[in-house]
């Protein structure tokens, strides 16, 4: 099959030749060609193979609405060949084929179709037992899917997203959409006109339509209208949130008013072999001719049920196609203006005839002829037949509105059984419909309706207009045939091209008891392919109505959900935003060789050094801090300024401990429980003034704690102001026996002797010339100072401490060493050593709970929970050495074969020379010296001895020195 070409079309520049390949063969196209139009111009009509039977498939719509034209380009699968432009060197491959679209050995499946009736997979593959997993699933998985995606290859191209805001967004730039945009913009609204095609104009570009108004020029010349072509509005979400895909960018648009002028989707007729290449919608033939200058065939038969079919006939004649016959499904008496023109051209018109069967070339490569049948009294193919040779069949039998977006916007679909037409209503005031999607079929009516809706949208946006929206009266008839379905005894009369579903498949699904449309869909998979039922939904509804003796309005159609058409994962992913935070000393840590870990969204040094043996580096950091002096960046600690006359009372309510009597210049441990009495955070409160507390919180907890504080005080209304100053203050913990000597070099206004600055005291002064908040705390169990300074000066502080500490061989230590040293000291980490049930009592931290207070969050729950203690307790444990199997956090503690708890922290202690840890164990095993059983990940069990969790310096002599 090779048709001569016109090669003069609205979208192409025939002077610019481009070369591309399809299935390895080189073809020449021209600029503006799609893959499908260029191949058609070369006489290549097979674009793909069908899903189940591997039947050759070709152009059906030329509107990127069907799965027939899905091809693969590079590693991108399921690209619409009738939408994607060609370019020099473009390499295109057919999908779901053995060798190529032309030659596909899997076409043998077509002969086996009788063994694959609808739903066969539900009752075929499950016997004998085990055969599904071993045999059928691997086969089906290998067969499933269309393209071949190499998931190891990175996504090509840069994808991102952007927001956009408009008064009115008009989707669809056909006559109604353009008229709506102009009317809305004339009234003052900012308008975005979105169309998926490369050129605005809609059907004006390819159909035999003429209007006095030059709508395209009016739109292009309007300062208030922005035009996006090649842009797909792929969904409607609440509050007129519209995702519009334009190239590699996903726009997230907000519109005060949306006008859907999405037009119509032409429907196929069902007859035997209605899927052969060369059989297409009438509008597809017109698009080929007018847009791409491609002659769709040499000798055509037209299947008609409306006047548009005669427009197709005129276009074919003008393109030099022989018109063998027009087969009109309607009885005589339907005379539109275009039919009147054709009757003067001496063309054979058969009124009341249908297309009963299309006959294929060898290998089903193309249509070679048709068998027509006179429609009998029952509306089926009668016995009177006629055969005609042809290489092109154009179907113009009716439309459905492109209702997907309106239905997503809340519209309800109804069906007028008399006019054979869908209607849409109830989509809300912020969503309007314009033109043929709302049942206006003649051009003037579409334009008038669009203009009325555009003005209405502008007025709804608040723009004033002297004119009032004037909406035309809807046409009483429709161009739709009530049931253009003509089943064939031998089948292959496809209802759903995507899923290879024939009329009998739908009939059998109903016969199996699936009478409701949604059940038919799920059982048969009709409408579940890439084209999402655009050409199958109405036909299925017609069949269900026919075989269940109901009207289509009673049967309804299936739900329309986003997305409207295919979209790439890359489009949805876009440019990824993954915020992370760094302390002001980040660059210095990098220079010192920090290995990073993520704590919340903070990047923190885990340890320093580039050697592969991280454990050795961490142990060295521990030993140096224990015996000498170390420094750690603690800027990530949460920082909250709590100020006001009620600040102490506020802390008293938020935390378990008591703060009213805390003297100025002192610190006190903070423990927070939630309403259920569960421990959720800890920190230190420093009393800077009578009414001013500087409160620390855990790195990952501070944002939640801050929100909690605001939430509670919104109810308590205490005279207190809370500010989250986490990022504003950076901190360094200077710790080790030589810490005081190092700090002494950096401050001359803070007295550092143990008497002047004792353990748990708080002082303010300057450190390295920087105003600093300094408090003596001992998280790691050594003499230590936590120095907090404004973030702008923190890198200078880090440098100064490093310089001052040189003579003491100071070295930084990371989070790993800190965690290890706090474990040696028996200090818990909230979130690691606690879970969603932990009470202070389980942690042996009742010392931090001031039960004499009238209230703190969780007090009442703790009183109740403490009456009936839980069965577990957090205990320290020791092992002489780490078992070969290894023990990790979350490994179980078992007792008598049952789970008694789990390990929360475990490590080899360089200071103690053995393995230490914390674990929840049975309460009865909490006594020192008890034995508990730890189960490793490989199932092996290991005995550990319960010990005081204060493994290191239990008398606190070192941190209080």
């Amino acid at each position: 099959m090779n048709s001569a070409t016109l090669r003069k079309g609205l979208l192409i520049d025939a002077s610019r030749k481009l070369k591309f390949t399809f299935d390895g063969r080189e073809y020449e196209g021209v600029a503006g060609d799609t893959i499908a139009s260029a191949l058609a111009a070369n006489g290549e009509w097979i674009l793909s193979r069908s899903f189940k039977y591997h039947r050759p498939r070709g152009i059906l719509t030329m509107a990127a609405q069907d799965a027939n034209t899905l091809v693969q380009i590079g590693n991108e699968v399921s690209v619409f060949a009738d939408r994607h432009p060609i370019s020099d060197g473009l390499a295109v491959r057919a999908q779901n084929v053995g060798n190529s679209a032309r030659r596909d050995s899997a076409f043998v499946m077509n002969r086996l179709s009788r063994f694959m009736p609808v739903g066969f997979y539900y009752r075929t593959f499950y016997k004998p037992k085990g055969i599904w997993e071993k045999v059928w699933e691997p086969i089906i998985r290998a067969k499933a899917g269309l393209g071949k995606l190499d998931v190891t290859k990175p996504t090509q191209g840069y994808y991102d997203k952007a927001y956009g805001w408009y008064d009115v967004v008009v989707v669809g730039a056909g006559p109604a959409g353009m008229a709506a945009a102009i009317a809305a913009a004339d009234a003052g609204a900012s308008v975005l006109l979105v169309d998926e095609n490369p050129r605005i104009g809609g059907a004006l570009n390819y159909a035999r339509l003429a209007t006095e108004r030059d709508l395209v020029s009016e739109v292009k010349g309007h300062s208030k209208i922005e035009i996006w072509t090649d842009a797909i509005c792929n969904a409607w979400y609440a509050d007129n949130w519209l995702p519009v895909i334009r190239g590699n960018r996903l726009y997230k648009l907000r519109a005060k008013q949306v006008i859907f002028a999405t037009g119509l989707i032409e429907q196929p007729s069902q007859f035997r072999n209605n899927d052969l290449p060369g059989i297409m919608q009438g509008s597809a033939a017109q698009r080929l001719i007018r847009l791409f200058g491609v002659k769709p065939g040499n000798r055509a038969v037209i299947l008609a049920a409306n006047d548009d079919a005669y427009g197709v006939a005129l276009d074919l004649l003008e393109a030099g196609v022989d018109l063998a016959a027009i087969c009109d499904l309607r009885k005589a008496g339907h005379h539109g203006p275009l039919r009147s023109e054709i009757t003067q051209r001496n063309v054979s018109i058969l009124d009341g005839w249908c297309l009963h069967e299309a006959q294929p070339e060898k290998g089903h490569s193309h249509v070679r002829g048709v068998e027509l049948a006179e429609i009998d009294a029952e509306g089926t193919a009668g016995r009177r037949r006629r055969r005609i040779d042809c290489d092109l069949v154009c179907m113009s039998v009716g439309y459905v509105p492109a209702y997907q977006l309106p239905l997503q916007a809340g519209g309800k679909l109804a069906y007028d059984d008399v006019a054979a037409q869908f209607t849409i209503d109830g989509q809300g005031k912020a969503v309007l419909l314009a033109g043929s999607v709302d049942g206006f079929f003649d051009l003037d009516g579409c334009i008038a309706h669009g203009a009325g809706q555009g003005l209405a949208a502008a007025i709804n946006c608040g723009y004033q207009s002297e004119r009032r929206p004037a909406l035309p009266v809807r046409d009483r008839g429709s161009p739709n045939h009530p049931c253009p379905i003509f089943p064939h005894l031998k089948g292959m009369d496809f209802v759903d091209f995507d899923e290879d579903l024939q009329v009998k498949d739908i009939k059998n699904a109903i016969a199996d008891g699936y009478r409701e449309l949604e059940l038919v869909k799920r059982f048969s998979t009709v409408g579940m392919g890439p084209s999402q039922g655009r050409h199958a939904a109405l036909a299925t509804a017609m069949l269900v109505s026919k075989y269940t003796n109901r009207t289509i309005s009673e049967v309804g159609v299936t739900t329309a959900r986003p997305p409207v058409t295919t979209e790439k994962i890359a489009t949805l992913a876009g440019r990824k935003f993954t915020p992370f935070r760094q302390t002001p000393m980040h660059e210095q840590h990098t220079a010192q060789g920090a290995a990073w870990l993520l704590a919340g969204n903070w990047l923190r040094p885990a340890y320093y050094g580039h050697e592969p043996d991280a454990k050795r580096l961490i142990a060295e950091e521990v030993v140096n801090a224990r015996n000498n002096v170390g420094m750690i960046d603690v800027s990530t600690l949460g920082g909250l300024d709590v100020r006001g006359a009620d600040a102490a009372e506020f802390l008293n309510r938020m935390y378990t401990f008591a703060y009213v009597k805390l003297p100025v210049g002192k610190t006190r441990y903070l423990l927070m429980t939630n309403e259920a009495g569960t421990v959720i955070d800890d920190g230190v409160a420093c009393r800077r003034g009578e009414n001013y507390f500087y409160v620390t919180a855990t790195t990952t907890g501070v944002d939640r704690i801050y929100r909690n504080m605001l939430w509670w005080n919104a109810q308590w209304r205490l005279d207190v102001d809370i500010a989250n100053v986490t990022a504003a203050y950076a901190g360094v913990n200077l710790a080790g026996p030589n810490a005081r000597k190092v700090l002494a070099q950096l401050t001359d206004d803070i007295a550092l002797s143990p008497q002047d600055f004792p353990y748990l005291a708080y002082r303010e002064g300057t450190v390295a010339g920087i105003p600093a908040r300094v408090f003596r705390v001992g998280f790691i169990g050594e003499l230590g100072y936590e120095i907090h300074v404004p973030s702008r000066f923190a890198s200078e502080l880090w440098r100064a401490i490093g310089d001052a500490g040189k003579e003491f061989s100071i070295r930084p230590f990371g989070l790993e060493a800190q965690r290890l040293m706090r474990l040696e000291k028996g200090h818990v980490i909230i979130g690691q050593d606690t879970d969603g049930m932990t009470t202070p009592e389980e942690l042996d931290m009742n010392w931090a709970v001031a039960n004499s207070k009238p209230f703190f969050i969780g007090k009442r729950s703790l009183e109740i929970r403490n009456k009936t203690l839980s069965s577990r307790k957090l205990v320290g444990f020791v092992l002489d050495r780490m078992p070969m199997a290894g023990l990790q956090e979350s490994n179980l503690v078992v007792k008598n074969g049952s789970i008694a708890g789990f390990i929360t922290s475990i490590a080899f202690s360089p200071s103690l020379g053995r393995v230490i840890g914390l674990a929840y164990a049975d309460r009865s095993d909490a006594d020192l010296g008890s034995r508990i059983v730890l189960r490793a990940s490989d199932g092996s069990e290991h005995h550990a001895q319960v010990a005081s969790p204060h493994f290191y310096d239990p008398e606190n002599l070192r941190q209080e020195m």
Partner: protein
Amino acid sequence: MGAIARSPFAHRLTGASQTPQNENVVIRDLSTLPRIGFKGNGTTNWLSSKVSAVPAAPNKAITLSDGTLIARLGKEEYLVLPGRDAVGSVCSELEASWNADDASGERRIGYPLPRADSHSWLYLEGSSIAQMMAKICSVDLRGDRFLQSEVAQTIVARISAVLIREITDGSYGLHMLTDFASADYLWDVLQDASAEFGGGFAGNGRI
């Protein structure tokens, strides 16, 4: 105080950075300049007694005669930015004034906030700023919608931000104050977002 304040963008500004190729998107780091905030009960009365005017409503900003920009972030919350070519020291004067009033026992005068350390400060100007911001912020910042002196407290590329439309006769200008600790992240975000406009960072300091 001997130490010199350091911008959180400092290490990026000294490295190989994307510089503006035109005047579409020009980003300047003002983080080393002073800035201060006040919030809490009584702030509006107290601040009104110290400066010639404060914005009448939240999410509005005004510019004082010396160039100081005062943005009202809430009923009782303000952000004070010195004029970029100002020689005065409005922030330190206000802080000293607050400390003096607090020391003298005055109550209900709000509390100062360390905005110079909690927030980095960028100034974005150029003809494509709104278009670029549309890629990273869901608020409509177009010139005819986000008017001069308007303030948006919102999210930019998933981090909190205070955006203030500059009050100027010149081209579109936007102050952006975001988390001090997220500066490195924000730098990459802005470099990426401004690339298609030929934009970039134009160095730091006053302009």
